């Protein structure tokens, strides 16, 4: 963060290290190495989907590192007249004051607002919108609240936020609903005095004219619901920290303070090969030539690709751990 105050000497020392050949970083990583990322999904049982992510936590004592908790809460929302159909996504990032002890509450608000804007604008984009947030067409839908809480910041907050968001959204289960309606049989003729009643029985589940549905019910289901449609699409982000001609990844707070500008690229992988750019931000004050930008975007693609595949693998592993494995372990105990 730019507000982390380091001295000019420190700054130039860090820059010199990064520009040296071979480059040297304080923790011994190479320019494009990440710190250790740990991720756990489903840590908040009362939410509809949750994830706990940290980057660079000390594996021995669990201290330090960027720490983020993300949770998804679904809420039933009545759709007002001429409002958009199919649900909404609202992202909110809040920063714990203990993560930024040096910030005043006003500055903290600004920071939260900035982070929220980036996440909300990216994730609520129509191209990413899951199709199963509907409950009753034109009547009711789910409002997806994605809340991210930054409990500690040790640099690279954007990557961490997007990863946590992707994990929580991946973990999200939408409760199954069944819309119910009462379709009045307008064609009902004189049925009285007639003993054989057959085809005229009305069905409560006629989906052809669902516009009449007024309410919904929750059918009992073994699981917590179905996953969000298109959960593979949720994007991953990479921050390229720029120092002169080179760039490096996963900056610590000090390193962030030492580089004048950063490029944030958010990629969504509909197919594993060709990503679409969901969002791009240039942070910082230095200039960047178009040519450079092109190269950087190309580079970013390879990073996000790795990040995407390893994150997906981890998320699948988490799903397995929490269900099948736990069940097997329980079965063995007997």
């Amino acid at each position, binding site marked *: 963060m730019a507000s982390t105050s380091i001295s000019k000497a420190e700054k130039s020392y860090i820059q010199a290290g990064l520009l040296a050949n071979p480059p040297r970083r304080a923790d011994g990583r190479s320019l494009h190495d990440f710190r250790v990322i740990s991720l756990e999904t489903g840590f908040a049982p009362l939410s509809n989907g949750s994830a706990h992510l940290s980057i660079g936590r000390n594996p021995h004592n669990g201290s330090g590192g960027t720490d983020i908790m993300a949770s998804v809460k679904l809420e039933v929302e009545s759709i007002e007249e001429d409002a958009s159909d199919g649900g909404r996504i609202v992202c909110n990032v809040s920063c714990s004051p203990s993560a930024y002890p040096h910030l005043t509450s006003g500055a903290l608000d600004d920071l939260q607002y900035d982070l929220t804007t980036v996440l909300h604008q990216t994730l609520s984009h129509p191209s990413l919108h899951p199709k199963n947030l509907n409950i009753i067409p034109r009547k009711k839908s789910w409002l997806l609240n994605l809340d991210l809480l930054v409990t500690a910041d040790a640099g690279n907050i954007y990557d961490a936020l997007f990863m946590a968001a992707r994990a929580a959204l991946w973990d999200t289960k939408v409760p199954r609903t069944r819309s*119910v309606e009462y379709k009045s049989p307008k064609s009902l003729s004189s049925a009285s005095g007639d003993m054989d009643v057959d085809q005229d029985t009305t069905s409560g589940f006629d989906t052809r004219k669902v516009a009449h549905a007024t309410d919904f019910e929750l059918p009992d289901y073994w699981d917590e619901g179905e996953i969000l449609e298109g959960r593979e699409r949720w994007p991953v982000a990479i921050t390229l920290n720029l120092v002169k001609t080179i760039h490096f990844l996963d900056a610590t707070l000090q390193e962030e303070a030492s580089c004048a500008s950063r490029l944030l690229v958010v990629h969504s992988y509909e197919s594993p090969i060709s990503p679409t750019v969901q969002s791009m931000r240039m942070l910082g004050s230095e200039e960047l030539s178009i040519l450079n930008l092109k190269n950087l975007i190309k580079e970013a693609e390879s990073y996000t690709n790795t990040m995407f595949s390893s994150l997906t693998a981890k998320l699948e592993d988490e799903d397995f751990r929490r269900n099948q494995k736990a*069940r097997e372990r329980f079965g063995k105990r007997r």
Partner: protein
Amino acid sequence: MASTEAVITQRKFFKKTARGKVVKVLRERYLRDDVACGIQGCRECSTEIPEPLPFSGSFEHQLYPNGHYLLPDTNVFLAQMDLIESSLFTPPIILLQTVIEEVRHRSLPLYNRLKALTKSEDKSIWIFYNEYRSETAIVREENEIPNDRNDRGIRVATAWYNTHISLTRPPIRGQKQTPHPTVVLMTEDAANREKAAKSGVTSISVRKYVEGMKDANLLLDLLAADGSQEIEPTKAASGRQALYPDYLPISTLLAGVKAGELHQGHFNANQYNYLEGSVPVPAFDKPILLVGRENMNRVVQGDIVVVEVFPEKEWKAPADEVVDQEATLKNDDAEDSGEEGDENGEEVFVKESRALSESSSQKPPSERQPTGRVVGVVKRNWRAYVCHIDNTSLTSTLTTSLSTQTVFATPVSRLLPRIRLRTRQAPILLNQKILVTIDRWDATSRYPEGHFVRALGRVESKEAEQESLLLEFEVPYRPFGKAILDCLPPEGDQWVVPPKGEFDIQNIWRDREDLRDVIVCSIDPPGCQDIDDALHAKLLPNGNIEAGVHIADVSHFVLPDNPMDSEAAARGTTVYLVDNRIDMLPSLLGTNLCSLRPFVERLAFSSIWELTPDAEIVSVRFTKSVIKPKAAFTYEEAQIRKDDPNLQDDLTNSIRLLNSLAIKLKAKRMAAGALNLASPEVKIHLDSAESSDPIDVEQKELRETNSLVEEFMLLANISVAKKIEESFPQTAVLRRHLPPPKTNFEKLQDILRKTKGLSLDVSSSGALAASLDICVDANEPAFNTLVRIMATRCMLSAEYFSSGSVAKNTFGHYGLASKIYTHFTSPIRRYADVLVHRQLSAAIGFTPLHATLHSKSHVERVLDVVNRRHRMAQMAGRASVEFYVGLALKARGEQAKVRGEADVKEEAFVIRTFRNGVGVFVSKLGIEGLVTFKRDTQFDAENYTITVPGAKEDVKISVFEKVIVRIEVEKDKNTQRGKVKMTLVEPVDSSAL
């Protein structure tokens, strides 16, 4: 780590709130290894409480000679609760937590019965918390529905029990190994039994289990109809034609009701026409009419149903014909009714549709009311009904055999359909009153199916009839339990008011006024044992009069929130039957300690007024007191005493004083617009205590002194109501009588206008009172009473309510024309009065108000029960009178026969005309009856007349006409029900019609 095992320890589910939000609910569970098995002497498990399960199980069942325990599945309790509750069913039972929870989820009443069962001492039931024992806890699998999960849990628990037993009883060297008892899974679900067999768990169906029991014959009848279908796979249920449309799913119903397209309400059957019913709903002024069997769609009196209303052009008017189910369906065969294409079914269908089409002929559009059909049931209100076995439904060849057969049970109440039931005791049950529960009503079955619960006794025996009355009107009549009797003063009937002063250890005299010297007397009906009110009056030096009403201080003995109080609240009211009284409070209180007997010191709650000689209230005060009544008069004695000019003692003078005030009070009340309504009241003479055969019936006589007591009770009630409403504006217990909707009177007004040219002004109670006064027929003095009776029937009934629950402008009592009213004067026999006593006592600062009486919702809940009990008690009382009137008429008819006279004939008034009959009211006997003609007559619905062919020429009969009827008591051939049968004698003899 908790998070890794979340899938085991946490149960998450979604709940939809009333406001349509979805909430996620999380339940954590902690598994333990020390949940006890409940078997006596188990070396592994130990508990503090004694284990109910015998060490070697039960040897009573022939299939399990090594001993067994029974582990019933949920469906056993859902379907066969009567069996489990039977005192003959005593195997040791293991009750799983899973089962209890599933029962609670499915049916709250059954859950409550199950809870009571686990507490009863004659059953050995052990509740095993299988979900909390680590070995028996299970986790819901992927794609597993809850029902399967629970079934699996039950099987796992059964298997665990069997292993547990064998593990804890290892063979001992040198001793012969005794075989272990088996834990048997009892379930109605064939699929579950199959799965159990696969995993090596012993299982059995209920029917099969009961068949192997000692008392199989008696117990098999208790089996609900649910169990019977597997046993007879010959009747392919799927092959049957659905006679009724299916219900919509409950969520659809609620959605429809919410959207206002459907309507929800209580179903009321029509007692004159079993093919017609109605559902009052808030959306329409008139109740929604349901015509025909399939529009009523398997609903039974009292069910909460959802109705769809037809388009307005299909609306109908209620039928004007009596359609008797016994007559129409006489030949229906219980064995195969409801099967496809049988001739019987066709016949019934033809008859019924004719009955419908005839009645739905041209009617004035004004009489049409919303018409619809039932599309679903929100809540069944089924309970045990008193029935007779229909003897024609017995297969004639089998009348003596003990084999199972299907018979019809006809409920005593005309509002209920016949119930099909299977029994092997049919021949024994003939001529008995029996209790039958409805189990289900399938779309393929014309009648509901039920099972036999128990026999009440021989038809027309007093005991059976009385019990059946109490059951039919849901009057709680069990004797008071020990916990309740323990709340009585320990001195019992030796209890006396302690002398004032130092010997008054309990401080009973605190703040009590000593009114022992006041000349107080009570006036009651003869033979009254529970005297709860007494009066006094005296002249004051300033020319005004002091009058006092003294009510037994019941709230001194019945303290809030103890077992006696809860029981009284549940009973709500004392029920008076002709030959019996079901007390609300133990009789020690009702007929002794709280009865204001003469010459005995009693605690009282007094209301004392200062009145001007013109009966204007100068002041009123309320106080707890001690009184010593100087006399207990009957109405007649008081009347005679008052009228005797020779008597000039204080007591007599005070009665005269009271009387003069009462006359003025009444005049004022009438001027304010109070109604003088009439309802037929009949008195039964019982000739002696032993035989209690009524010998005669006569109308109750009203004396001046009746009205004296009444006026002062009204005065007390009104004064008290004002006081408590002032002190507790949110929770005061009040009573109101809402003005009836104008539409209720439409028909009566129309009849009066057309037949007598009279008009009825119903704009206010005063106007109604005035116009009722001029409804007289010079030739017929009884006519006025008749109109009053009919007007009374158009009104709503009065109800108790909590003052904070309704708008203040609806507090009024229509009949009494009072702005505010309550019941204060009979705390021995009405629970509302007890509450009012407590509130008044708090209002005068005598005692603090109990916390429950500050809670609006609590007061509302209690009053709901009291209102319902009150209604039921009235109906039970009326039914009891009817029964005795029937007996009396029968006796009279027999005497007449002995004397060689003709049958009993009485004057009667026509009150209703039907296409094929007339409803008549016999004022002398206070009974209503129905004269039906076999042939149709010319019926003029517009003018309420029918024309019947007479001996010479046709005779026109209209409403209010005086006729003479022959009254016989005829034993209904099919049901053994004593039934008053009336036939017209004049103007025409209808026996030939």
